[in-house]
């Protein structure tokens, strides 16, 4: 059997499972054995015939040999094409499955981050609303308290109520700043989305690589470098006290 390597470019041949033509091609492989049989038969006939008549049979035998080489080459091509497609498909499945799972995980992080931050912000807004309602109520009572205290010539109740209102307002300010802290989730999700985008780009490129005819497009797709910003692949929206303590310890050394 010839060892000629088949380097014929493929024009999106599909896979053995999806292209009905493959079964037909695979069925034709025994043709090689049949040519071999014919060659052996011609050799036997040539040996049995007397001198001059054998030339025609010899020529026939050479033609058969050429046909055998051609069939052999076609067989090699076929084997190469089938194994290449199988390899590419397995490789792509292995790589893209990981990429798709990582992308899915990344997008889940975005959802979880948004969910957590939204709840935190809503809690802070509810707190703020409650504080404001208390402060308004106390402010409405101030004129009455002022009048009551005026009879004594000093304003202890009024002053106490005023202090409470100031305390409520300070509390409200704290809540407003807390909302601002929670809004940092946007910076975290932006980076999480950026990583999901990169992973999708890689999956797309590998998918394109499977179809050899689109190799240049795939190579171009492999050049994807994100939507313009850099990102931290490990970023997460979670309490940072422990991390910050570890960082502080490094700076204290």
């Amino acid at each position, binding site marked *: 059997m010839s060892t000629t390597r088949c380097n014929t470019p493929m024009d999106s041949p599909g896979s053995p499972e999806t292209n009905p033509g493959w079964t037909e091609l695979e069925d034709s492989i025994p043709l090689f054995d049949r040519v071999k049989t014919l060659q052996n038969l011609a050799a036997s006939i040539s040996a049995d015939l007397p001198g001059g008549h054998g030339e025609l049979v010899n020529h026939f035998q050479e033609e058969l040999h050429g046909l055998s080489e051609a069939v052999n080459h076609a067989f090699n091509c076929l084997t190469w094409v089938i194994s290449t497609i199988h390899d590419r498909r397995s490789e792509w499945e292995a790589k893209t499955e990981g990429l798709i799972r990582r992308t899915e995980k990344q997008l889940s992080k975005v959802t979880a981050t948004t969910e957590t931050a939204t709840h935190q912000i809503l809690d802070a807004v509810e707190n703020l609303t409650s504080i404001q309602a208390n402060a308004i109520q106390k402010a409405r009572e101030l004129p009455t308290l002022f009048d009551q205290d005026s009879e004594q010539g000093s304003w202890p109740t009024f002053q106490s109520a005023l202090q409470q209102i100031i305390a409520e307002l300070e509390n409200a300010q704290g809540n407003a*700043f807390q909302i601002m*802290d929670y809004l*940092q989730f946007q910076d*975290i999700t932006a980076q999480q989305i950026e990583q999901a985008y990169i992973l999708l780009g890689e999956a797309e490129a590998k998918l394109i690589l499977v179809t050899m005819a689109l190799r240049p497009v795939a190579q171009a797709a492999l050049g994807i470098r994100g939507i313009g910003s*850099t990102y931290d692949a490990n970023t997460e*929206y979670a309490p*940072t006290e422990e991390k910050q303590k*570890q*960082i502080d310890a*490094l700076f204290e050394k």
Partner: protein
Amino acid sequence: MSSLRILLVDDSPTMRRILANSLKHLGYDDIIEAENGREALDKLHAEQFNFIVTDWNMTEMDGLTFVKTVKEESDAAAIPILMVTTRSQQEDVVEAMRAGVNNYIVKPFTPQTLKQKIEAIFAQK
């Protein structure tokens, strides 16, 4: 009100707004913003600053390169730098320290942490 002139560098407009608001709440009103290291360097060359707060992950020029560049410039090398970033891996923190940052905060942060780190930086001065 503090007389510090602060250069605030972050590519996220939301983060710049949060940081600027937090700094103002702490009494630092003189804040100039830049969205990446390159823009920050331009501003640093054009104006005087006493303090830099910078993110790490940015386009054009990231925070680490920016810090290294600042530390190589004789006029700006002495300006204290606080890095505020999502990066919390130990090797990242060590790399930032080697680059010359004076302190490091991991996002999301609280105004208390920001206050403590700024005070710590200026207590060393």
